[in-house]
């Protein structure tokens, strides 16, 4: 009996097991990632559509802090308030729901994030009368005004992620 015949079963096991192991270690995670919705990057001034609504970032601005107390803008030194306004309008077959916004930055190779300020008035920031700080999608058009508190200088490299359902859209901030 040749060496090959004596070891055929073992060789067959190796031939089957190694690709199977590689699939489990590499293929399965890749397939998992492929099934996860990615982040869609939106170009400056462009409108996207999600859940039957269109979203357009119409304005954004940084308000550098001058400190707290008399004669200041009540924004702590070294921080900035970032405000952004979205036009949200029903488009085709709008679905009731909500959306979330988050300011994000990848400057310096580090992912960082900021949540909306729940009470902008604490920093003497007045939200526009006709605007809402909550993103409730109920079939009506509205202007969404979101406010974030960030370290100074964050604005230059930041984006706003808008998540509607399972989709996330990344809007660049407005730079004059």
């Amino acid at each position: 009996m040749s060496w090959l015949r004596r070891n055929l079963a073992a060789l067959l096991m190796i031939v089957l097991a190694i690709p199977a192991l590689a699939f489990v270690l590499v293929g399965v995670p890749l397939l998992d990632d492929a099934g996860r919705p990615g982040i869609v990057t939106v170009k400056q001034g462009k409108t996207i559509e999600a859940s039957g609504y269109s979203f357009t970032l119409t304005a954004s601005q940084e308000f550098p802090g001058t400190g707290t107390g008399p004669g200041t803008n009540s924004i702590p030194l070294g921080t900035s308030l970032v405000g952004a306004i979205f036009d949200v309008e029903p488009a085709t077959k709008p679905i009731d729901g909500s959306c979330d916004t988050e300011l994000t930055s990848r400057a310096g190779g580090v992912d960082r994030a900021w949540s909306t300020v729940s009470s902008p008035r604490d920093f003497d920031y007045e939200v526009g009368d006709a605007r809402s700080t909550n993103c409730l999608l109920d079939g009506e058009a509205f202007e969404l005004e979101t406010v974030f508190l960030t370290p100074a200088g964050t604005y230059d490299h930041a984006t706003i992620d808008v998540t509607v359902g399972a989709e996330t859209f990344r809007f660049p901030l407005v730079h004059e």
Partner: protein
Amino acid sequence: MSAPRWVIGAAIFAALAGSAVVVAAAPDNDGITAPFFPKGAVGDTVSGRNLTATVGSVELTEYLNIKYNDVGDTSTDGVWVVVDTVLTARLDTVILSTAELWIDDVRYRVSDILPAPTSLQLSYGAGIAQRGSLVFEVPRDALKAPGATQASIVLYNTGDARLDSVPVIVVDLTGLDISARHRIDERAVVDQ
């Protein structure tokens, strides 16, 4: 020519003994994934992956005199340990509701008695430092435990701390006066 039997026997014994040492020295499952605990003392700035912490002072009191949201005095059958902190999230928002005070082997969870917004929530996001208080409610006897001289404020900042880094501030709780009241102000963003 083959090796003498005693050499083979000794080699097998050595291999078994070596294996036994490796098995005995290997960490258990919890040890393999345990968090890292960078440590400091009062006044030090200690950083973990997503949290930088500085403890300015630790004080003991019978009543918390909460000066916001019309809460007023809050008593305890034991004693309040009030930890004045400056906390900064490094990457994202942070919730400290799982922070603990360790005295010997006993772990006391941070109290949620303070009304929102508190220092338990670093809700703005990365790089925004906030000054405020964390409070722990402990029995008076705990202050007499041998470990009270080296109590640890363990600033867990995620539900799953495995392989994460968690700042720890080591404090001496013995010899501190217990005040009748301690003023608690609302957390505040500090100048950067």
